[in-house]
């Protein structure tokens, strides 16, 4: 193949209709609060792990919604419970985090 010095790059576009919803639907069964997140970011703002590791419950949940596995990010969670305290939608984030781990560990 001729070397042009540049190649076709993969599109970063998210094809929403082709996202595999199975994991997210399963997550909603394990934790019904998963569907009501409004992306406010309170969870990440109070997270003691966030500043050191970049961990964010909001991002992890969004990733599951978009069919991506970011299970590793949760390894930095200490289950301290602060995110549960601040969530305005009352999501049981502890159950959410444990459920996501379970989903991707099985």
């Amino acid at each position: 193949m001729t070397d042009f010095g540049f190649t076709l790059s993969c599109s970063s576009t998210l094809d929403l209709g082709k996202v595999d919803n199975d994991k997210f639907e399963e997550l909603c069964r394990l934790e019904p609060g998963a569907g009501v997140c409004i992306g406010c970011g309170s969870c990440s703002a109070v997270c003691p792990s966030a500043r050191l590791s970049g961990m964010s419950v909001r991002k992890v949940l969004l990733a599951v919604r978009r069919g991506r596995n970011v299970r590793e990010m949760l390894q930095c969670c200490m289950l301290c419970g602060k995110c549960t305290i601040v969530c305005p939608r009352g999501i049981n984030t502890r159950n959410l985090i444990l459920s996501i781990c379970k989903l991707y560990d099985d």
Partner: protein
Amino acid sequence: MIYEGKQKIWSEYQKEIPDDNWYYVRSCIRQNFFPASERMFTEISRNVLGKDIYETPHHTTCGGIAYHCDTIPQETVMTIVARQFALMTEAGYENYCPSCITSFGNYAEILETWREYPELETRIREDLWKACRREFKKPKYLAHTSDLIYHWRNEIAVRAKHRLVNRQTGESLRIVEHIGCHYAKMFPSKGVGGAEYPYVLAGMIESWGGQVVDYPERRHCCGYGFRQYHVKANRSYSLSNTYKKFESMEPFHPDAIVTNCPGCPYFLDRWQYVIAEQTGKTYGENGFGIPVLTYEELAGLVLGYNPWDLGLQLHQVAVEPLLDKMGVEYDPEAKYLGLNRENILRPELPGSIRCF
């Protein structure tokens, strides 16, 4: 697709295009990319339709490429443009038609800027006077040359030797129209048909017997994007944009693509080879690409000009499948012969995309 809905929009974006007496300025790059296109414009307008088209060798670049590459400030571009207008005024014309889409956008943007900020126009007039002792009147009408061919499309159709119809099947050819971004996206009201559903090329296709392909990524940039291409590190953006368009138009099986911009036909044409090299994929039938033509080349084919006089041998993608469908006669042996059938050597042909 609801055709009447588009017609309604087209009727709302019509611009006044005087029939005759135009001051013509050429593009910086088109004569290298598509050497016969501008020549075809003057040939058709002067010799076929008998119009008065004036041009002078004294005109320069409009500065648009440098402006869009962020290398010169707009005031400089304005002064260059002011000089172009001065040449038009001195020649006694008031209708200005550039061959380049970016020039057209550049002129439209400058005229609009002067309308908003008259003090800037005054300053540019002073600068021009200081620099070269010239004065100018602003053009009364500004049109891109594709606007003119659009305006004359039915006169061309009357004289057509070939129509955009498959000779074997009798079906209208499926033609993709691609409009340069600077034509109407900056000023929708300045383009025939507006920015979302431009009619300038679609009107030619319809008038000459073809059918217009409307595909999801129709409005997307060809991929040239100035800095996307000129900076080599960005070149994969350019290529990837083009790829996105071809992937989107592929299910419609277009017979050809027609464009009205200097860069678009070049990149839509050449990148088909690069995509074929890198992915092994071709978008035409039987390993060919999809032929990409300028509107002047298409008009030339319709009017029965010899394809090799139209410079179609300089295209990367083989145009022969289109010529065969339209029933255009050509001598395959003469494809790479120069003036007076002088042998000027054949180019090396790629293996990844079928060419002659």
